[in-house]
């Protein structure tokens, strides 16, 4: 596998020959992937190919049966202490936002810094307000998630994840549940996050975003990584027949 980020030789995510089964069903069939600090890796592929499952193994939301996954030097095992530490370094944004409906926007963002990082309330709120400003939700800070549009909720979810100051951000189809007119505002936030040097692994079908922001695109199919390339090669000179089929469907 080529090192696409020459300035940072040590990868921050290393997955090696990862296998996972749901009962008899082999969802991940030996996936190996390295992600370097500051890199944006986009995972594409047909529905059901195991994209969500793969990135959910990166923060131990899913376990795996064979292979190893190492996040920033810590190997994911059953050890609860390790899992908690890894989760503090890896933020995640879901397709369905999953904001806490009983808490205000501000409380959603300050909750984990206060309870996990032991920030004082004042400090957590100050940091939260900065983040909310960054994602353009500042004026809605005292509202409840149910009072916001989908695009606004997803931006709050990004701010909530960032509040833990993660080294890595995982996105699982962050715009798939949004009305078309709200997709852009979320992609803009993600683009600026990528510009700030965040390490990102993004599952998405947004071709424009992948072309413009990704350092690398991988195609996943039936639990395997089929192709791995930079955006230009991926879209213009795909090596694999499977990639050509996939591109023919989505372009």
């Amino acid at each position, binding site marked *: 596998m080529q090192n696409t980020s020459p300035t940072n030789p040590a990868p921050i995510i290393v997955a090696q020959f990862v296998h996972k089964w749901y009962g008899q069903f082999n969802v991940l069939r030996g996936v190996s992937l390295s992600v370097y600090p500051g890199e944006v890796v986009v995972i594409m592929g047909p529905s059901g190919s195991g994209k969500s499952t793969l990135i959910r193994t990166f923060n131990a*939301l899913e376990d795996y049966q064979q292979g190893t996954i190492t996040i920033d030097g810590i190997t994911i095992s059953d050890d609860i202490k390790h899992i*908690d530490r890894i989760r503090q370094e890896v933020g995640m944004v879901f397709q369905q936002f999953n904001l*806490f409906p009983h808490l205000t926007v501000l409380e959603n963002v300050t909750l984990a810094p206060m*309870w996990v990082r032991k920030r004082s309330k004042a400090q957590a709120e100050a940091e939260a307000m900065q983040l909310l400003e960054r994602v353009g939700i500042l004026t809605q800070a005292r509202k409840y998630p149910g009072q916001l549009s989908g695009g606004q909720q997803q931006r709050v979810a990004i701010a909530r*994840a960032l509040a833990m100051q993660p080294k890595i951000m995982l996105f699982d189809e962050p715009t798939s549940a949004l009305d078309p007119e709200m997709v852009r505002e979320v992609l803009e936030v993600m683009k600026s996050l990528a510009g700030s040097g965040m390490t990102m692994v993004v599952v998405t079908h947004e071709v424009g975003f992948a072309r413009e922001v990704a350092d690398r695109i991988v195609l996943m199919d039936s639990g395997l990584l089929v192709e791995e390339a930079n955006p230009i090669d991926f879209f213009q000179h795909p090596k694999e027949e499977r990639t050509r089929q996939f591109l023919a469907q989505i372009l």
Partner: protein
Amino acid sequence: MKNPPASAPPPAIDRSPVRWLRQNLFNTWYNGILTLILGGFILQVFVAGLTWIATKARWAVISENLPLLLVGRYPAEQSWRLWLVLLLAIGLPVSIWGGKRRRSPGVGWIYAFCAMIGISWLLGGGFGLVPVENSLWNGLLLTLLAASLSTVLAFPLGVLLALGRQSSLPILRIACTIYIELVRGLPLIGILFMAQFLLPLLLPGDWRLDRLARAIAGLILFNAAYLAETVRGGLQSLPRGQIEAAKVLGLSAPLRLWLIVLPQAIRMVIPAIVGQFISLFKDTSLLALFALAELTGIARSVLAQPDFIGRYAEVYLFIGLIYWIVCFTLSQVSRQLEVRD
């Protein structure tokens, strides 16, 4: 048509009472007959009832015993303590789960803690307050006290049972399931008898609970099983994404439970909990069987007064009215809670 028609006002509806009668009560010949028969019957009962209330009933039994029915023989100069207890107890659920406006849940729990201490002090006496023997606590006050105390105390037990029933530890899960299903399969009266006669045998010798405490313990044990099932319903209806979101933020299992799962699950079941309180409130009338003079019990002792022998109708009508007022008020409150969400 080139332009869509301008939006027109809805057609006027004839709302006259004559039309309403014709449409709803006399729209067919058999509905008309039914209306006349039922109407006559209701009128008969109503007139007879009112006539009795106004002419034959002797209300002296109520007016002379009013304080007794409401606060019993609790010393009048001490009765402020009971009202204070009641206030504190009502404040408990309000402070902890009250509305969405609460900014920090910690304040609610601090209040709850202080209120519990306050309640124990006011009831138990000592530290400057004279102890009032609890055989003097009677009437509506005792009914309210027994119902609210047992709901408030059953609540944490019910939540623990609900969590235990979902636990991944088999022993805990099985124990909680057995308890819940056992209690739900028994009549309350049976549980109350067991609390009276079995509890003293099971508790260590120096734990001498009096009759009232044992009765309340029975209500708690009974109510907790039902609360557990209600709360479990709330736990199960929580979307999986909520727990995942809490996990990926690095919140530990106890924090996930405390900050994310329980507040949402319990908020979902508040109306059901109020409903349960209403039935518990009525069920406290069973305490009369153990010579505890709550509302029903004190009514029976009023009926034993030589002056008022045989005044059953007046007394039971009056306490029925009190039960109804309390229950109706609570069910309205609970409906408001449901509407708001």
